[in-house]
């Protein structure tokens, strides 16, 4: 059965997650008129270049202000408030690009692997997303442009492709093809490594992950109920390989581990 390939896919929690992801995609594309374009940032990557975008991309907004050599007070304040409550929950439950990667991993039907400890290279690769965040923001400040957006695969799929489809005579430049190449590489990677973009490269995921240790929404493991069967780790799309890392910076609180646990030792809970 296909659901067995990615444990927890058929649970009630999974249905709720998919419904939330679809609703978010619809709400993000509700900007039919100027009045519906809120200008507020969302706590995940979503390109405001999309023709129907109703919210602003946090990365785009940060870069915009830094490129103008202005302090992005409001964006940083709103993001930290959101991450303080949600942590990386938005990556697992709201992000449309994350949902697309989930779909690709499901269609590719790759069997879950037995969790092995992370190698040194894996640990270093997982830090790359922080490098992408800081490097992009520094480059935006120095080059006075939205440098990350030049390569962003999320912008490619939610803004670049719709833009070309909606134009009668689309004018595409070199960056459109660069975007498409990056997009194809990321989507192909997501078929082999679930949530590859979220694991290694997403700058907003890196920023949100810093809040996971203190966020109100968090993953709770009942040590007394846990029998160390590691079904949770086998189900994890982020490839978390150690029980101690559940709920850590790489956890997107998607709840697959919660559904996979035969003893009900895990739950997504709120803490003060």
């Amino acid at each position: 059965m296909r659901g067995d390939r990615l444990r927890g896919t058929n649970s009630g929690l999974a249905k709720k997650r998919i419904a939330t992801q679809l609703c978010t995609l619809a709400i993000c594309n509700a900007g039919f008129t100027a009045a519906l374009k809120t200008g507020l940032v969302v706590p995940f990557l979503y390109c405001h270049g999309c023709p129907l975008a109703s919210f602003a991309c946090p990365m785009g907004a940060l870069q915009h202000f830094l490129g103008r050599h202005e302090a992005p007070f409001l964006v940083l304040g709103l993001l930290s408030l959101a991450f303080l409550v949600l942590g990386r929950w938005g990556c697992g439950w709201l992000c449309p690009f994350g949902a697309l990667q989930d779909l690709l991993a499901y269609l590719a039907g790759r069997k879950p692997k037995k969790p092995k400890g992370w190698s040194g290279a894996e640990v270093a690769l997982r830090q790359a997303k922080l490098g992408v965040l800081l490097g992009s923001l520094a480059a935006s400040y120095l080059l006075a442009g939205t440098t990350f957006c030049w390569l962003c695969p999320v912008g490619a799929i939610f803004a670049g492709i719709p833009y070309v489809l909606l134009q009668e005579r689309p004018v595409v430049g070199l960056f459109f093809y660069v975007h498409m190449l990056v997009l194809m590489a990321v989507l192909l990677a997501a078929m082999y490594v679930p949530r590859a973009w979220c694991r290694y490269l997403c700058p907003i995921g890196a920023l949100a992950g810093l809040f996971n240790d203190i966020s109100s929404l968090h993953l709770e493991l009942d040590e007394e109920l846990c029998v160390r069967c590691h079904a949770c780790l086998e189900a994890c799309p982020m490839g978390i390989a150690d029980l101690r890392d559940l709920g850590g910076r790489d956890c997107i609180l998607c709840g697959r581990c919660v559904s996979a646990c035969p003893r009900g030792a895990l739950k997504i809970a709120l803490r003060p």
Partner: protein
Amino acid sequence: MAPEGRSRKRALVKLLILLLSAILVWLGADQYGLIRLLVRVICPSCVGIG
């Protein structure tokens, strides 16, 4: 560290970040005239103050 101590430390860090976030939102709102706009909506006669 004991779980209780860890939870207290977490609550303190969270409170500090919450305070910092509130300051950032206030500064940001001020930067774009949102506070002035809000005052104008709530109390039109107060707009001239400050």
